[in-house]
């Protein structure tokens, strides 16, 4: 087993997948194409990455309050991340996840980590998320850093 990070389960759930991480906040409106799951904010370090089914790590959302609606569309379209890890409790992500639960019984697990733990996350790692907010990083030694935020 790899390193275990103890986070706060904002919306509890289970997930596992490839980590895609950046220290740069993102607006999903204008930043996330729910048809493809691609990050399309050309100013963002993760621009061009497809994150459907991945464990997406972003400190928080930025800008437009339409982020929630875009993430809900992604849930319906099957292009949402498997889980989202943040530093702050991000209420935009939380709402999308709660409405996805109310509408489709399909919440996105959300975990808030402290900044030090968040900084351990690098693109290319694999991770599992459990309902109690534990994030287990697998193969941390061999993980290659593909994209890392500023």
């Amino acid at each position: 087993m790899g390193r275990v990070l103890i986070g706060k389960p904002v919306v509890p759930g289970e997930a596992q997948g490839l980590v895609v991480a950046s220290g740069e906040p993102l607006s999903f409106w204008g930043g996330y194409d729910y048809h493809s799951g691609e990050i399309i904010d050309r100013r963002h370090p993760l621009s061009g990455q497809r994150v459907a089914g991945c464990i997406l790590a972003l400190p928080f959302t930025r800008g437009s309050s339409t982020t929630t609606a875009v993430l809900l569309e992604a849930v319906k379209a099957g292009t949402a991340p498997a889980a989202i890890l943040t530093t702050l409790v991000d209420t935009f992500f939380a709402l999308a996840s709660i409405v996805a639960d109310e509408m489709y019984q399909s919440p996105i697990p959300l975990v808030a980590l402290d900044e030090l733990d968040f900084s351990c996350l690098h693109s290319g790692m694999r991770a599992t998320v459990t309902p109690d907010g534990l994030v287990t990083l697998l193969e941390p030694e061999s993980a290659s850093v593909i994209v890392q935020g500023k």
Partner: protein
Amino acid sequence: MDLNLSAYDRSILAGEHGPAAQLAMNIVMRMAQVYGAEELLDISGAHIDSTIYIGEAGLEFAERLAGLGARVVVPTTLNVSGLDEHGWQDWAVPPDWAEKAHRQMLAYQGMGCIPTWTCAPYQTEWKPSFGQQIAWGESNAIVFANSVLGARTERYPDLLDICCAITGRVPAVGLHLTKNRAGQLLIRLVDIPLELQQEDIFYPVLGHLVGKIAQDNIPVIAGLTAQPSEDQLKALGAAAASSGAVALFHIVGVTPEAPSLGVAFQDRQPERTIDIHLPMLRQALQELSSTDRDTLHMVILGSPHFSLAEFRQLAPLLEGKHVHPDVQFLVTSSRAMALLAKQAGCLQALEDFGGKVTVDTCILASPMLPPSVGMLMTNSAKYAYYAPGMLNTQVAFGSLEDCVRSAVAGRVIRETSRWDAY
């Protein structure tokens, strides 16, 4: 801390006010727990951003609420929708898309909301007052209501805004509470010439920079010696809410909760102090353009929606001129503001110039631009920020005067000498 619900809240949750209110309250309550709220509080107004047609799920949500008989219980304005209800056929909007976007408009209207269809509800008769508790969506509207009007709203995301309007209740957290409205960062303008501060273009550029610096903190801007207009503050806020998550800013001596530095910080110490010098603003100005090329297909004005004052300012610039045949000139506004502008005689000059007005929506909310439009010019930092990613266009950012001059010449022309050191 546990969430204490009132008897009224519990009666909604129990379904005594109907199934739509029950669903809405369930979402409000779960969000209150995420926010860590101890209670809910009453609101007396709402602004709904969920009107923008994003896709099937948002439409399904709206139609489910409407189908369950949802009614808003406070005066509720509507943000831009996905199409100009009566003018979308003039543009490249696909008819099947328009049909769905229109169904979404009807769903929200059917809940008793006011069909304002504007992202600048603070420039309508439903403008909130100082201290009023409201639940607003739309980032530029949120930052304006909090900062310039002193009304109190959190950053309500799409889908939650309508739930608050249906229940009349919001989690008692964040910017609803006085203690959370104190400044956190001190941003000092240092040696910024007054002549530059008096230019309209100064405000979106400053806002872009402030948003990048502040992110989700509350900045206090000090050292502004000019008295900005309502539209200048609107441009500043929209820019700061695009490049950052700014929901409230204070400007010492300008905004209502900042008569002095001490009051703006509620007598606390700033967490950080950042000085802004002219070269930083020049850098921010450059960032707002995605290209140096001078090709031009369209000049686009009006994000946030053009006000009557902006129509009045634009009209004389267009007198006796005509837009270049290869360029389109478009202003996005609300139907009410366009009507006022028409009655004030400001639209004739725009029509004679060869320009158009689109209402109810904007180029970011509606798939209205044909693919041949690849190069935009704007004076809006919000359009400049979002267009490259959302529309896959290049953007040149300039002043209103630059936009008009460029539209006539058929290529991008920018006057930048005002940004040079004096």
